[in-house]
């Protein structure tokens, strides 16, 4: 068998040209899954049969002289909080075990229409609440670079699937960093698009005002390819921006000449591991060498992002997760009265972290506490937006670490929720602002584990962000290259 292409762009080009078949590409990836999935646990469900049928259909279209689309024959993994028609969608929660949605999420429809082959549903922290995928009801996912370490989260399964070569691309969701942080920890590219750029229809909600679907890939170009396929207005999502998908692939080679890029002061100091900060500075130098102007910029309110986030997100979650009451679908634990049945079902069906956030959110919205907690958090959110706006008056892009540290070991932070929450300190402000940001791998830390640098852009600044990402990618040291 000839060497198969490995990136989504190359696979799609080869499949469209009839040089390789979608089925053989799929088989190679299924073989990779067979070889390592046992130790990684990236998937809640591998859709081997369905994927084979989809790949065969792509091949048939090519044989018939049709073009299956820009993702022709590309295996793609879906986070298991994206609804797939007739296929179990669990959010890695017992409470949704066995539920089969009667419809596909908009992004699932769009990738299928572009010719992609859905290869499986990936593991996550239950209902996307977590930063290590340790909160999954179906066991943690392991970091393919070192299986003693977490892959990050909540989209740990989607990040690990790409890092392990189970699929060249995958989709995750990012509410406070759930795409970018695992991308950084697994050494892949991960993108959180502008809020409203990608339809949320069919994404099981965690925190509706923050949730956004985005791509994982091994290369910046593949993320651009996948984002182009899923972005664009959807009438089924009222918060969807009424605008066509941006052109990203076309601008990747435009460089950063003349761009002003700011290092975020608040995200480079206390709480950030020195090796990680050093890599970010190195990336800044690379951007500078490529013609960008680098400066430092303060986003003062970003320091309060974490506090605001842990009121707003749980508040919305407490409401979004109310529907899992045992009445209509998923788990039901019977009890004498409806209210007791609700309680028994939710007690048995939800894990500890989900319960913790439901309680936090319920409290934050309660009469007498609303103003002090939820109301104040909304004000902080406004301040963060304002501070970003001020920063973008002088800079085209911002630069920071994605995660304060490289991948940590299992159990390191499970006993201390606050230290776990601190993992998202660099990613959360973007979600609160509704802006795009992405993580690009940039060498390793002192422990030899991947470091991700984060590029941040103002709303709908994806094209500029991807230009810089391509420069960072080209300048990235290899993981093996020792940390100086």
């Amino acid at each position, binding site marked *: 068998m000839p060497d198969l292409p490995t990136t989504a762009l190359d696979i799609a080009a080869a499949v469209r040209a009839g040089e390789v078949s979608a089925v053989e590409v799929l088989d190679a990836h299924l073989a990779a899954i067979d070889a390592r999935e046992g130790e990684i646990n990236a998937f809640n469900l591998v859709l081997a049969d369905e994927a084979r049928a989809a790949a065969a259909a792509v091949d048939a279209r090519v044989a018939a002289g049709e073009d299956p689309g820009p993702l022709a024959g590309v295996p793609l993994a879906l986070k298991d909080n994206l609804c797939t028609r007739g296929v179990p969608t669990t959010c890695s929660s017992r409470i949704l075990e066995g539920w089969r*949605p009667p419809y596909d*999420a908009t992004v699932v429809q769009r990738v299928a229409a572009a010719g992609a082959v859905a290869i499986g549903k990936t593991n996550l922290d239950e209902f996307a609440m977590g930063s290590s995928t340790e909160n999954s009801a179906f066991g943690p996912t392991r970091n393919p670079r070192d299986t003693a370490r977490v892959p990050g989260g909540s989209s740990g399964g989607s990040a690990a699937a790409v890092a392990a070569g189970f699929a060249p691309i995958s989709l995750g969701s990012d509410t406070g960093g759930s795409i970018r942080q695992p991308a950084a920890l697994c050494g892949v590219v991960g993108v959180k698009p502008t809020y409203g750029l990608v339809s949320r229809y069919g994404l099981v*909600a965690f925190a*509706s005002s923050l949730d956004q679907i985005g791509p994982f890939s091994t290369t910046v170009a593949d993320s651009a390819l996948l984002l182009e396929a899923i972005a664009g207005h959807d009438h*089924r999502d009222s*918060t969807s921006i009424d605008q066509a998908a941006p052109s990203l692939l076309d601008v990747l080679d435009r460089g950063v000449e003349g761009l002003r890029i700011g290092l975020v002061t608040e995200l480079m100091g206390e709480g950030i591991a020195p090796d990680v900060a050093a890599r970010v500075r190195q990336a800044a130098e690379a951007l500078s060498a490529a013609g960008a102007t680098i400066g430092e910029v303060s986003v003062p309110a970003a320091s309060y992002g974490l506090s605001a986030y842990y009121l707003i997100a749980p508040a919305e979650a407490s409401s979004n997760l109310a529907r899992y009451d045992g009445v209509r679908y998923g788990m039901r634990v019977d009890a004498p009265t409806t209210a007791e049945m609700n309680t028994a079902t939710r007690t048995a069906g939800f894990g500890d972290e989900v319960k913790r956030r439901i309680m936090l959110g319920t409290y934050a919205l309660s009469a007498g506490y609303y103003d002090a907690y*939820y109301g104040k958090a909304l004000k902080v959110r406004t301040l963060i937006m304002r501070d970003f706006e001020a920063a973008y008056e002088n800079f085209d892009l911002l630069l920071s670490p994605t995660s304060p540290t490289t991948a940590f070991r299992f159990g390191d932070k499970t006993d201390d929720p606050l230290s776990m929450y601190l993992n998202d300190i660099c990613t959360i402000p973007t979600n609160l602002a509704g802006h795009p940001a992405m993580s690009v791998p940039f060498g390793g830390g002192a422990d030899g584990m991947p470091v991700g640098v984060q590029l941040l852009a103002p709303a709908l600044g994806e094209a500029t962000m991807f230009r810089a990402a391509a420069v960072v990618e080209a300048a990235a040291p290899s993981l093996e290259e020792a940390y100086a």
Partner: protein
Amino acid sequence: MSANLTHEPIEGEHFTVTSESTGDVWEIVVGLEVHCELATATKLFCSCPNMFGDEPNTNVCPVCLGLPGSLPVLNHQVVELAMRLGRALNCSVEPSVFARKNYFYPDMPKDYQVSQFDRPINVDGWLDLPDGTRVGIERAHIEEDTGKNSHAGGSGRIHGADYSLVDYNRAGVPLVEIVGRPHIRHPEQAKAYIDELRAILLATGASDAKMEEGSLRVDANVSVRRVGDTELGKRCEVKNLNSLRSLGRAIEYEARRQVDLLETGERVKQETRHWDEGAGRTRPGRSKEEAEDYRYFQEPDLVPLAPSAEWVTAIDAAMPSLPAARRVALAEAAGVEPTETAVVVAVQRDLDALALAAIAAGGDGTRVLLHVEHNLAVDGAESLDPAHFAQLVTLEVAGQLTATQAKTVLGDMVESGKAPEVIAAERGFEAMDTSELEGIVDGIIAESPDEWADYCGGDDKRRGKLQGFFVGKVMKATKGQADGKAVNAVLDARRAASS
């Protein structure tokens, strides 16, 4: 119950409960909250049909079932109808936002209701009752309806049923909740308010407003206070009011209950009470151990709703004629006051256009209204030919038909569509000349000498009774063709002559 309800107005507009034990005079204060289902083709946030009475759980989809991952999309027609209603209620249309009202209930698919909380679409309007009372409207906001539970086996109530079934066809049906200010002072006013609101809902096409089908649901906030007090008393919210009759009875009962409590030194507990039509009383709802906390917050799945000024202007321009204006128009044409019962009834029954046309065709206004009020509460009345209606009234005024004959002919006109002269001829209705009538009256007087003596010599009360006796006999003899007024005139003349 010792408190006695009187209908005596104070300063022309207040009504009271007078305590029999103390003689204190109490005032009833009522504010009504009305939920009405909007008559849209589809639901509030999805394209499922908005239909009453279909097979359970057939008009449902992922959105109105609140399935994980589904999202709401606001129905444009809902906003249109809600604004039309708001403007008809003299509200101002404001930029508004949707909010989630969080509580667990099996008929609510998401376990929260999407409603409007601190920023409703319609605010600060009013509704004028036919009697001239102006009732303030605090707000009229958009929200989604819930499904419907039914409990089977066991006691058949939610507690003690063997199992429960939920029908989600109604889940997500658009509602407008109209919150009236506590400006109502009497059960009859409350009924008039609902009647008027219903007429507005029908005129604007906002709702079919059927209380019995639940597309119009009324809750009454009732409190009492001593006349002259300016502070409002503690109120109870009375639910389960399925008809106007229930509404009136429940307010009256509740007011008396509260007066009795207060007069015996007890307090009124602010609570929700349910009207029991069979027992004729209100009962406390299941007491909740803790106060309900709905944890309202802005619905993040929807964007703020800010209808443009152009949109509001277009709605105003297309506003159909509303009941109050229609009453004025009809009253002017008929030469009566707009508060006249016949005028109110004509508009309520949607017969004002017919009455106006009949008057325009030369019919006497008072007679036209009289027929509309008393003789046209029948199906098909609205398709009566106004020219025929006018002719009928003219025949009647000219004395060619008696009132009784005219009523009969009118009934036939609705059924057959024939002209009144044709029907009168077919039925053999002809004006009776005076000498013929006098002969008949004389004959009847001769047949009943004792009654006649009594009629001539008795007191007024006795005479009144006997007048009925003689008129009845004459009517029987003439098969109803005699004119009652003419009969009375002959009787009077004969009595005067015999004394």
